């Protein structure tokens, strides 16, 4: 293997030599090389070890289908596992090591077990390591060390990733002749076009054609220039379309910086970008992958696909062998022989068919053996050194093979077993490819709307046919785009024909139009499945699945190809069986004596090729993974030293520790200060829904369990909301602004779902109600002033509201001006203390908060967060929906039957469900209070409850549990079966710690049961 002198259409830049490391040793390549081409140019034959048997493997392909050359690139933050060397563009300073080899590439212990390999067929691990069951963890640990490829990175990714959305009339996948012709034709017609191609530059397989064909070269250059200059066209090279979803959502991964030396990468530019392309029409010009021929030892280094050898020669000027054998079952092998001849190499062609006119080659000294096939490859110094060939005859669909064998020496073996169209994307939306005997391939169904296939995916084998087909597909696609003018549409098809010399003429269709151009046949012969050597014939190179494994699976009665796949691991590797699957299907068909069409394919699912997790996440990582929502007071909370907790997406102050305080100490201080003097809390996060309309009151009566008909303007009421199932869904205080106008508050986390729930009922079930809902959560900011001295503060900051207990009682609200800002002040309480909530437009929220803090200092004001809020409300037995309820708690279960009114004209949501016998069972889990018999013992929330010390039958669990500073003891809320009728009884908690904690069931209102604190100081 070596680099040749300049080839006609090579894509390497000989003026830019690059240096790279492979397995710690320095080598030289050129700009434009892939790692694989540079390795071949440096005569590196061994690139990996196989998954199961540790066999030596070499480069077999030149693109995404590569199964063997999995390498690890770089280290630390740039560590890239399982990169395919064939797709990895070489850059200066690249460091690559093999992704396999235990302990090393040159000496693999799995290979030492060679005498035992014959026992290690498919299913070996399942059968062997079953007994004794308890040893499985030991087996697994050791097997895992032996299996797999590259190591996963152990440090954070140093690079960034992002996404981009695109919209186009036509998206084209593939930049070969079909894709290019389609793009130009569509763009000329006036359509906007996006073309993605996975290689570093467009052209596809056409580059090899250009090497020997001036017309091809000219057409390619002209087409490319026209596309690059076209305003309607966006081309993305290095971009792999990895999924095609419904409504033509095409996902594509662009490698933006992988080809650059580490030092040259811009840290502000994403390494990879996931494009999300929404196109009116999609043209799949994805091409096809060549299949290898099947014979014993077909996995030796030096055995590769014929098309790959051709690409290495024409694109990279790399000769893969001085004495190559080319074996195959279709016409394409002669193209390789011709190209090699141009480079001065006389290959030996072994064609299992007979009848191809190879006179032009044989006259120049190329040996052509028709009616022969390679049946075995022989190793010499770590690579293929000779092949055994035998005569083959095709009768009908059946091959017979002669017993006499002949040995041909060689230093490389290129094979072509036909071509498999890249139907993957077409199949992602559920289409099934169908086997076509003419092409000996599974052809795309292309039966989804607004989708076309063109080029070799449709069986075309020459650039002219592919280009004509692409142009034809574009003409069909633009017909369906309304924004493209009919005049241009009509001329599109004709133009497409004029530009491509030698393209096949369009056939007149029956209805006057044209049919698509007929593909030129490669005369691919049926699959040649040899009888001999199946135990060494590798079908899935990456997972070491042999022909004999497929036989074994069938012998063990796995008949569906999906089962055969899973039993043998056929197609399970990172290459997803791109070269092996169809061969595996052919073997299964042969062994079962069925038609290939009947066996069918396995399911093609996204991703087409592996996609980095970073690209899937894009920019939405770290603090941007989920939105952090802030209240207007956020800056003040930070200045006041708050620790935050996430509630829904909101960042709420959790507690405000002073120097040296932990959460426990801070909460103790905050709670006591609020109960004895003055506390302040930011309540801005609660959901707020403005409800207006003549039927607003009726609407509230239907969505809340309690009564609303008498609530007067200026009043507030606590409301309990159930789902249709009668279970508590949300709660909150609603203020009556006027007879037709209410302001509802919801829980912080429930705001969006409650709003949707209400809108759904209004729009779908009660359209007769004249009610408008508007979310005003963000408009209002809420400062809660809480504690016995709250009134003093309010009187100081607002002089147009009378704050006396008589004139502004609990559960009233007033409109006024607070600190010069228009405000709604609500006297509501979630702590049992005197409490005013000052609601102002968000823009003044922080001003109000800071000013109240300042004025509150004379009353020793204390900020408190959600943790103290939880303690204060638990002391009062107030529930938190989602903590004390879990979607299985009715109002009665929560001991809130007082909030249920069943005599409404129109029943409330959930009312009927509450009358089910199950909703009325006396032994439902009911919300109660718990006292630990040791008052200092704080139960963990979630602790399971049992009736007796020795019991394991759960009767409920702890929902809330705190140390209550004001009571000087622990308190807990819990749901207990039939708990409301068990007051005073002793039950036990069994937390995970293993202790057994005796408890007494008590009322869940622990503090100020007489509500003496509500009006504040006397």
């Amino acid at each position: 293997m070596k680099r040749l002198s300049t080839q006609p259409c090579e894509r390497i830049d000989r003026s830019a030599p690059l240096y790279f490391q492979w397995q710690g040793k320095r080598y030289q390549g050129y700009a434009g090389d892939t790692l694989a081409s540079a390795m071949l140019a440096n005569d590196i034959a061994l690139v990996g070890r196989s998954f199961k048997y540790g066999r030596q493997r070499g480069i077999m392909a030149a693109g995404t289908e590569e199964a063997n050359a999995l390498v690890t690139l770089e280290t630390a933050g740039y560590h890239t596992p399982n990169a395919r060397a064939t797709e990895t563009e070489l850059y200066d300073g690249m460091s690559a090591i093999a992704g396999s080899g235990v302990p090393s590439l040159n000496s693999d212990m799995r290979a030492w077990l060679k005498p035992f390999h014959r026992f290690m067929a498919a299913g070996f691990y399942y059968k062997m390591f079953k007994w004794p069951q308890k040893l499985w963890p030991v087996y697994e640990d050791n097997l895992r060390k032996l299996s797999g490829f590259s190591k996963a990175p152990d440090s954070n990714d140093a690079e960034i990733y992002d996404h981009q959305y695109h919209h186009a009339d036509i998206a084209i996948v593939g930049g070969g002749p079909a894709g290019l012709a389609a793009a130009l034709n569509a763009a000329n017609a006036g359509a906007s076009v996006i073309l993605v191609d996975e290689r570093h530059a467009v052209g596809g397989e056409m580059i090899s054609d250009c090497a020997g064909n001036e017309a091809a070269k000219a057409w390619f250059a002209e087409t490319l220039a026209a596309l690059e200059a076209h305003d309607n066209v966006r081309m993305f090279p290095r971009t792999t379309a990895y999924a095609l979803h419904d409504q033509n959502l095409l996902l594509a991964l662009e490698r933006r910086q992988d080809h650059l030396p580490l030092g040259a990468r811009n840290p502000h530019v994403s390494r990879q970008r996931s494009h999300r392309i929404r196109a009116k029409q999609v043209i799949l010009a994805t091409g096809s992958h060549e299949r290898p021929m099947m014979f014993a030892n077909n996995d030796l280094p030096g055995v590769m696909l014929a098309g790959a050898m051709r690409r290495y020669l024409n694109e990279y000027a790399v000769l893969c062998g001085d004495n190559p054998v080319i074996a195959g079952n279709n016409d394409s092998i002669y193209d390789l022989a011709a190209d090699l001849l141009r480079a001065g190499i006389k290959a030996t062609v072994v064609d299992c068919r007979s009848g191809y006119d190879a006179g032009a080659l044989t006259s120049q000294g190329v040996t052509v053996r028709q009616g022969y096939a390679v049946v075995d490859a022989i190793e010499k110094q770590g690579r293929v050194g000779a092949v055994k060939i035998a005569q083959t005859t095709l009768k009908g669909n059946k091959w017979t093979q002669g017993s006499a064998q002949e040995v041909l020496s060689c230093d490389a073996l290129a094979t072509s077993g036909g071509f498999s169209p890249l139907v993957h994307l077409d199949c992602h939306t559920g289409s099934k490819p169908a086997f076509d005997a003419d092409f000996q391939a599974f052809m795309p169904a292309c039966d989804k709307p607004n989708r076309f296939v063109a080029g070799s995916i449709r069986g075309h084998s020459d650039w002219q046919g592919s280009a004509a087909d692409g142009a034809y597909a574009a003409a069909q696609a633009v017909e369906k785009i309304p924004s493209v003018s009919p005049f241009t549409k009509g001329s599109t098809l004709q133009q497409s024909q004029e530009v491509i010399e030698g393209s096949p003429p369009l056939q007149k269709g029956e209805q006057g139009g044209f049919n698509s151009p007929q593909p030129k046949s490669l005369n691919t012969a049926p699959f040649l499945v040899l009888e001999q050597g199946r135990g060494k014939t590798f079908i899935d190179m990456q997972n070491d699945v042999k022909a004999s494994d497929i036989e074994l699976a069938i012998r063990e009665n796995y008949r569906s190809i999906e089962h055969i796949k899973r039993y043998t691991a056929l197609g399970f590797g990172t290459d997803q069986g791109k070269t092996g699957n169809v061969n595996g299907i052919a073997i299964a068909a042969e062994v079962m004596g069925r038609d290939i069409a009947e066996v069918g394919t396995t399911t093609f699912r996204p991703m087409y090729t592996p996609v980095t997790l970073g690209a899937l996440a894009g920019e939405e990582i770290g603090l941007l993974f989920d939105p952090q929502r802030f209240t207007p007071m956020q800056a003040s909370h930070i200045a006041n030293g708050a620790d935050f907790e996430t509630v829904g997406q909101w960042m709420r102050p959790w507690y405000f520790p002073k120097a040296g305080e932990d959460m426990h100490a801070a909460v103790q201080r905050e709670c006591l200060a609020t109960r004895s003097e003055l506390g302040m809390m930011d309540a801005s996060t609660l959901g707020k829904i403005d409800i207006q309309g003549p039927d607003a009151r009726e609407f509230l009566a239907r969505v809340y369990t309690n009564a609303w008909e008498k609530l007067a303007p200026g009043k507030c009421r606590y409301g309990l909301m159930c789902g249709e199932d009668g279970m508590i869904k949300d709660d909150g205080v609603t203020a009556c602004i006027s007879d037709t106008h209410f302001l509802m508050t919801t829980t912080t986390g429930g705001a969006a779902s409650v709003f949707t729930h209400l809108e759904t009922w209004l729009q779908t079930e009660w359209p007769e109600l004249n009610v408008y809902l508007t979310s005003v959560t963000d408009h209002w900011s809420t400062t809660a002033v809480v504690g016995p001295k709250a009134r003093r503060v309010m009187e100081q900051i607002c002089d147009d509201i009378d704050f006396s207990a008589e004139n502004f009682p609990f559960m009233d609200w007033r409109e006024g001006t607070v600190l010069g800002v228009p405000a709604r002040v609500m006297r509501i309480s979630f702590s049992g203390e005197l409490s005013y909530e000052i609601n102002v437009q968000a823009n003044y929220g922080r001003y109000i908060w800071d000013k109240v803090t300042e004025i509150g200092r004379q009353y020793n004001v204390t900020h408190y967060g959600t943790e103290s809020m939880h303690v204060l409300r638990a002391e009062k037995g107030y529930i938190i929906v989602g903590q004390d309820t879990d979607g299985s708690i009715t109002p009665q279960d929560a001991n809130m039957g007082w909030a249920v009114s069943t005599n409404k004209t129109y029943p409330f949501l959930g009312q009927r469900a509450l009358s089910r016998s199950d909703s009325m069972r006396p032994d439902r889990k009911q919300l109660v209070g718990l006292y630990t018999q040791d008052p200092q013992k704080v139960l963990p929330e979630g602790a399971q409850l049992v009736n007796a010390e020795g019991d394991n039958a759960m009767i409920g669990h702890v929902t809330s549990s705190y140390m209550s500073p004001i009571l000087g003891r622990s308190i807990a809320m819990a749901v207990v079966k039939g708990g409301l009728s068990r007051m005073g009884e002793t039950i036990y908690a069994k937390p995970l710690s293993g202790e057994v904690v005796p408890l007494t069931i008590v009322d869940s209102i622990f503090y100020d049961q007489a509500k003496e604190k509500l009006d504040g100081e006397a």
Partner: protein
Amino acid sequence: MAKHNIVYDSVYETALEQADLSALNSDAVRVTEIRDRGFVVLRLRPATAGVSEAMAKLGIELPDALGMTGSADTRLVKWISPDEYLVTLPLAEKDTFITDAKAALEGIFSAVVDNSGGYSLLNIAGSEYQELLSKLTFYDLRGNLPVGKVVSTLMTKAPVIFYRTAEDSLMCMVRWSFADYAWKIMVKAAEEYR
């Protein structure tokens, strides 16, 4: 009830008051927060009797679906959904407008809701602003949002309203509580255009 007669110097802040606005202030991407606008939600069915007279009285016109009417300097009426409109107007005129709107719509099933504190209003411009937004928004802002059109969509995970009043920039309304997130993700996504 004591009268203090204190004149307070209230402080008006916007959602991005704390953000470092220089982070998105280059020729490539320039994001500015418009601080002096009020937002009033009008809920009504345009075909209801009396609505056109009421709108005439208010001096505004209801736009068609996805459209807007009026002027950014006075009253810009944006279509949000079949019975929802959002009026953007100078902050100082907001309270009067609300009072007038309520009076004009008296007796008509409707809602007039002040949502002035609900949003941060952003102008997004610069040579790369379309490219930037295409990284964050799945709506085709480049091809399908001409001057005069309004859409409600997402900027990554933040709900936003986009509308265009000039060829070379976009207006974006993001809910107050999401503004910090939207700002930070724009800063991150714009890094490559610095």
